[in-house]
């Protein structure tokens, strides 16, 4: 065991190294730039590649290219850059290329406030690229989790052959906390490899868990990658049956195995009356508020979401039967609250504690909202 005093951004970069990442392509943007800066030093030390591209579109493109070349690859960005990445994010979904995008959210829309936090890109992370798909999105709420969930993100990317987004924010990105790192390297999940006669390899034939085996460019197994609708051979097709089969598999390969994602963590009394649901840096205020409310004798618990997408609908639905009210604490005008409302389905009251002034939500604000609940 070793302990470090890291910023959120540093923990992400070291987490990526521990997860075996050897390729980073990026474009400097506040508040994520420290990840690029650190990678430019750490990767060459590890026989890896750091490349600074001409924009964020090219950055994710290079990451995808390197991943099909067989490397664990990632990028880091913030709102404006994440908007540019949407195009190739969809490509990674369609072509099933494992990669990790660390997105330190900042205040928006547009250039907004470059160095101030927000949690207003949770819906963009889910729905930002066009088409019909599932997205894997994780949200750490401490510097320790920046490290742990970055490791998880790489493994999930390989496991599901999918892009994985790690949503942090400007506050967490620059927060310094103690991080504990195990001496043994974290377990590594690797993309399934083709076996047997190379002439019979079909790049998009579903394997176990619906995931196709993935050859790398240069292997004897001929790899065909495309963002067009494609058959199992990787040849483009516009046949309705091929399109439907592909979309169904892309959805089901994630939805059927959603329980492999980091589950929500509950802290608080056994039978809470009010449940705070939160994610990311807002969790810290929610937990502090819950603790103070408990000290005053109120039964308030806190549910910390670690995977935002696919949304843990069943877990929220179960809690809705057991509590009187749910308060969704987030730094936006009310984005994930709608998703919680869908999951609660009228079983209890749902309201939001929302802050959207470029400051981190405080426990005092949550306590004030609690007294009204």
């Amino acid at each position: 065991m070793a302990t470090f005093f890291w910023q959120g951004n540093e923990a992400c970069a070291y987490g990526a190294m521990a997860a075996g990442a050897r390729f980073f392509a990026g474009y400097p943007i506040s508040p994520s730039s420290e990840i690029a800066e650190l990678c430019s030093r750490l990767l060459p030390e590890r026989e890896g590649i750091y490349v600074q591209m001409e924009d964020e579109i090219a950055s994710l493109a290079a990451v995808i290219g390197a991943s099909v070349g067989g490397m664990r690859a990632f990028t880091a960005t913030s709102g404006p850059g994440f908007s540019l990445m949407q195009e190739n994010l969809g490509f990674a979904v369609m072509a099933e290329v494992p990669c990790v995008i660390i997105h330190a959210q900042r205040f928006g829309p547009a250039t907004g406030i470059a160095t101030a936090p927000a949690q207003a890109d949770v819906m963009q992370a889910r729905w930002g690229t066009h088409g019909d798909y599932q997205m894997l999105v994780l949200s750490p709420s401490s510097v320790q989790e920046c490290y742990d969930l970055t490791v998880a993100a790489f493994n999930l990317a390989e496991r599901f052959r999918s892009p994985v987004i790690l949503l942090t924010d400007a506050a967490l990105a620059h927060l310094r906390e103690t991080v504990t790192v195990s001496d043994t390297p974290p377990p590594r999940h690797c993309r399934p490899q083709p076996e047997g006669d190379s002439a019979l390899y079909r790049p998009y034939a579903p394997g176990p868990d619906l995931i196709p085996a993935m050859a790398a460019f240069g292997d004897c197994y001929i790899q065909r990658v495309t963002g067009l609708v494609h058959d199992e051979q990787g040849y483009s097709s516009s046949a309705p049956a091929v399109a439907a089969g592909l979309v169904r598999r892309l959805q089901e390969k994630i939805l059927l195995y959603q329980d492999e994602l980091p589950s929500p963590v509950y802290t608080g009394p056994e039978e809470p009356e009010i449940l705070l649901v939160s994610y990311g840096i807002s969790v810290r205020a929610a937990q502090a508020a819950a603790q103070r409310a408990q000290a005053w004798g109120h039964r308030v618990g806190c549910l910390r979401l670690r995977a935002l997408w696919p949304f843990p609908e069943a877990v929220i639905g179960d809690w809705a039967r057991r509590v009187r009210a749910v308060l969704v604490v987030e730094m936006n005008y009310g984005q994930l609250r709608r998703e919680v409302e869908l999951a609660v389905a009228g079983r209890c009251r749902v309201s939001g504690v929302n802050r959207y002034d470029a400051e981190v939500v405080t426990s005092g604000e949550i306590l004030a909202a609690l007294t009204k609940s």
Partner: protein
Amino acid sequence: MYWQVVLSGNGGHGLGLAGELLARAAGLQRGLYAVQTQSYGARARGGCSQSTVIISSQEILYPFVEQPDLLLALSQRGYERNYPLMRGGLVVYDQEAVRVGTRGGQAVEYKGYNLLRAAREIGDEIFVSVLSLGIITALTGKIGPEDMEEILRERISGPRQEQNLAAYHQGLATGKV
């Protein structure tokens, strides 16, 4: 213990590093919990800069300072922005850069020094952060002086280490008076 510290001043005062050193000295050397943040404007020199530290004997849920117990004020703006939040504690300020005429809280104690001038005499205004850390270490007794020195030696290497250590010791001596 739940000790909330704000180090405020201008870009180029080295406050980000000072916050990190303070938190490391507390968190790593004494087994306390510590968190640190720093303000990020455009990453150019000059302008308002601020770093905050919380040191606690328990796990820190909310990592941002709500009510400072200690304020280091190296600029008027940093002072004005933070003293209204205080309900007690200590303000350490630069006598030339900050006028504390509009004093806030009743129970707040004020200690003024010529911090920036002393730093310039050592060689560069940037030494003001480590000089101030010396004063804070001596005044408050929350951090072991030898812990702080160890972290300083670990974190600042190269040609500036000696000047920083000199600044730190000068601060310690000043704070003890």
